[in-house]
């Protein structure tokens, strides 16, 4: 019953829990009140505070007398509700004494605004009492809003797990109907080789889900409750950078744990120039204004240089490198007398020559422009710095056929999910790959429009789009955040601290998710969407539990989500295909 000793308002009220009933945090409740004319107004809300106390006693020490049976006192068990919805929208307060009930069935649908979502809802996890939280897909796919942002301490908040669970739910809940195949995902793997087994079944999922079911007293395991299949991701391609080695060595993916099914990826030197990838090599182009100009003009020079050829390498005729160029047997006639630039190191050397060494240290006037030598040196220094990291990725020493085969293509036919493993790369190379891939994707989507929704999963947003500073990668991410939703690119971004990420990226996310947070972080303005009691609780959330906020429901909702059905480590891979050991053994013996 709604309490009369505390203020009752249309947005928040306390209620007394009758003996025999129990209420916990995050329970959804409903109240019906009547206006003087007899018409009903329904309030739906979420419990954000529960407390018990002795009523009718004055002193703290009275608890001993109550427990000894001397002092009559009653236990007052009360809970506070934050109203999430008033239907119809008459913002009158409920009356003290109005009965409060658990929201179930239709009440629950109303409390979570599921009626507004219609068939465009997909499960976002289970509420504390085992009911399914629907998330409005219209706020994910860009129709009404888009993007998902996940914050939480690394390791405890399991941001990537939840992002993958949401993808699984979007792809497999049947909510997209026949168009399910049309959705794609581009996932960047930034930590370990965790995501390289997404297409393998997890051998522990059955036991772990059975444990969770028993522990929470659920009627069925969590996948079944949400109507999701217990299966790994389908149609996945894995891309990994090639293992660094001598020029001409075999191109094999740089991964340790997975021996097959991973494709190496690289760009040709000509593509690097023709597709203007140079800016993505520089993460701090705002270090000085002039550096930005240099990058811009060199980018243009390289672009022009790359025109008119189709080889993976570039040729120049105005440079004599120190080392002898070995004459290649398949050298083409029109390249006679020129020098071939076949590696990233050579490209860097060529640029150094053009900018600093040529013309007796003056540099080539056309290239140098009016820039000071200090700026040019800064440019070359930076280029040399990343040279080691980019050499395996940007190469001219491969055949055109290999370039075509190893070119990363997240939109390849027959592939729904692409995992790009960048964890072995240095920070600069990671930025380069993320920036180039997202730029390509964005440009492609600008041409073809939004019919295929592409979900981009990117952890450590604070690295790629920091609040302070400027970089081409940040520009791409901002483009995606601000215009991507209308093009069908949805960013599922994650970071430890939202306060360190570019504000416009976080604020463009329609769905915000918070796992365990550092308490100081939770007080920052980025988390104002969490009511105070939720902010305090964000410090104690366990792995597998998230606070989800979506536009349809004004207050965040606490959900737990199931153990991944896909392997997240090599030792979780279910190589028995779900069968008993003995059964598989028999097959072998036959």
């Amino acid at each position, binding site marked *: 019953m709604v309490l009369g000793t505390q203020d009752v308002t249309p947005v928040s009220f306390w209620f007394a829990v009758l003996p025999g009933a129990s209420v916990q945090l995050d329970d959804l409740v409903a109240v019906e009140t009547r206006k003087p004319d007899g018409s009903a107004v329904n309030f739906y809300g979420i419990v954000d505070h529960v407390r018990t106390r002795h009523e*009718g006693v004055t002193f703290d020490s*009275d608890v001993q007398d*109550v427990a*000894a*049976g*001397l*002092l*009559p006192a009653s236990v007052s068990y009360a809970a506070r509700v934050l109203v999430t919805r008033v239907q119809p929208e008459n913002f009158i307060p409920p*009356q003290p004494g109005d009965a409060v009930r658990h929201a179930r069935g239709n009440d629950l649908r109303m409390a979570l605004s599921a009626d507004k979502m219609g068939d465009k809802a997909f499960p976002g996890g289970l509420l504390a009492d085992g009911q399914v939280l629907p998330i409005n897909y219209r706020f994910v796919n860009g129709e009404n809003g888009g993007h998902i942002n996940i914050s939480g301490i690394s390791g405890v908040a399991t941001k990537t797990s939840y992002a993958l669970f949401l993808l699984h739910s979007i792809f497999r809940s049947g909510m997209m109907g026949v168009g399910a195949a049309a959705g794609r995902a581009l996932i960047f793997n930034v930590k370990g080789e965790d995501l390289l087994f997404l297409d393998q079944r997890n051998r522990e999922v059955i036991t772990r889900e059975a444990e969770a079911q028993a522990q929470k007293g659920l009627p069925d395991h969590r996948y079944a409750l949400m109507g999701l299949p217990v299966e790994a991701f389908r149609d996945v391609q894995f891309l990994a950078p090639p293992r660094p080695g001598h020029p001409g060595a075999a191109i094999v993916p740089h991964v340790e744990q997975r021996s097959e099914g991973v494709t190496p990826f690289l760009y040709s030197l000509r593509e690097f120039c023709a597709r203007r990838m140079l800016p993505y090599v520089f993460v701090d182009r705002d270090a000085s204004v002039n550096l930005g100009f240099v990058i811009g003009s060199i980018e243009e020079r390289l672009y022009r240089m790359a025109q008119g050829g189709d080889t993976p390498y570039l040729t120049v005729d105005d440079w004599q490198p120190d080392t002898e160029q070995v004459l290649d047997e398949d050298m083409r006639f029109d390249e006679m007398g020129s020098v071939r630039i076949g590696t990233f190191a050579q490209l860097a050397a060529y640029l150094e020559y053009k900018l600093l060494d040529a013309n007796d240290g003056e540099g080539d006037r056309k290239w140098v422009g009016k820039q000071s030598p200090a700026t040019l040196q800064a440019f070359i220094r930076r280029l040399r710095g990343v040279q080691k990291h980019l050499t395996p990725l940007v190469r001219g020493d491969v055949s055109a056929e290999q370039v075509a085969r190893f070119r990363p293509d997240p939109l390849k036919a027959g592939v729904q999910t692409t995992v790009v493993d960048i964890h072995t790369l240095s920070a600069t190379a990671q930025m380069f790959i993320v920036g180039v891939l997202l730029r390509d994707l964005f440009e492609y989507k600008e041409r073809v429009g939004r019919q295929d929704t592409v979900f981009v999963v990117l952890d450590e947003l604070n690295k790629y789009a920091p609040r302070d500073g400027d970089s081409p990668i940040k520009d791409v991410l901002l483009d995606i955040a601000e215009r991507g939703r209308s093009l069908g690119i949805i960013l599922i971004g994650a970071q430890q601290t939202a306060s360190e990420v570019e504000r416009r990226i976080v604020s463009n996310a329609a769905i915000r998710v918070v796992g365990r947070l550092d308490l100081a972080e939770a007080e920052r303005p980025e988390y104002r969407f969490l009511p105070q009691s939720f902010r305090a609780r964000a410090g104690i959330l366990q792995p597998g539990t998230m606070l989800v906020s979506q536009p349809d429901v004004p207050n965040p909702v606490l959900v737990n989500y199931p153990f991944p059905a896909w392997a997240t480590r090599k030792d979780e891979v279910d190589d028995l295909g779900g069968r008993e050991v003995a059964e598989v053994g028999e097959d072998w013996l036959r």
Partner: protein
Amino acid sequence: MRRMRIRLDPWPVDTNGGQLGLQSFDGTLDDLETERWVALPARPIPERLRQVFVVDGKRRMESRLFIEDDFGQSGLGGFGAFVVGAVELCPHGSRQAELREVKAARLLAHAPDLRLDPMTLSPRNPHTGQLEYTPVAMQGTDALAALNLLQGQMLAAEQRLSHALASRVPADEQDDREWLSALTVQDGTLRGQNLDGAVVGCVKTMETMYLPPDRAALLAELRPGERTPVMRMTYRNGQFTRLIWYVRLCEAAFYQHPMAGVMRLEMFAPDDPSFLPPIVRQVANLSGTLLTRLGSRAHKDPRAPQNLIPTAALEQAMGRSMGSADLVTRRIRAHIASLHPQAVA
């Protein structure tokens, strides 16, 4: 040279008379339990005693009235409320204490020759309940008659409740009706006639010293839980007869009067002057143990330890059940206003 000594009356100064304004008693007092005047130790509470009830009552005059009835008669009257209630507890501490029967009754006291119907005062907000006043004719017509009526009604209700809850006490030696399984502790002295219940009255304030001076010294020497032997006490007019004894609930602090913490207990006496019912002896034996446990603490209650823990809680609950005096007064005014619409318009 003897030094001046000052001791504190244990009760707050605004309590009428204080605890120790002792007057002498001019009735008779007879030894009944024993002739040896010594302190008797407290005994454990027998297993068979399962329920102890602490009963109290409270009353409140809400308005004094001048009434004109539909037949042209007029006279004084008053709106009043009283409540009696009990706390049920287990003397062995194995159950939670619970409030029983705490419900206010409302009276419309009126001069004897008026004819009135019951009155219902409805609130403006239908959520907050109605007040129903039952008309009862007063004895006499003076200004205090309404209050006296209210007090009498309350005491009678308290008496009925106490005895209804308690075990029966046999009236003579042949009467062997039942064991002591339910005991009622009633706040204040016993009134009215004996209704046979195992009801013990706790007199908090010592206003009259029933003991002769040579015996009174023992009261200061009692240790917590100890009691005096049971005596039979008769007022001079012979009207009231009680069995009484004294018990100490706690050590008196050094600055207090040595009799602080001593309480007089009384039970109804049977007609046979030489018969001490075994139940009374049992109650006397366990009274020290029970009351030292029920006694409150000085920092929680200015009348500690005599104002028992359950009594204090009961008083609070009773006050609550009568409702806020301000709100009731306002309701009465609103009701009268509704009877005189022209006055409001």
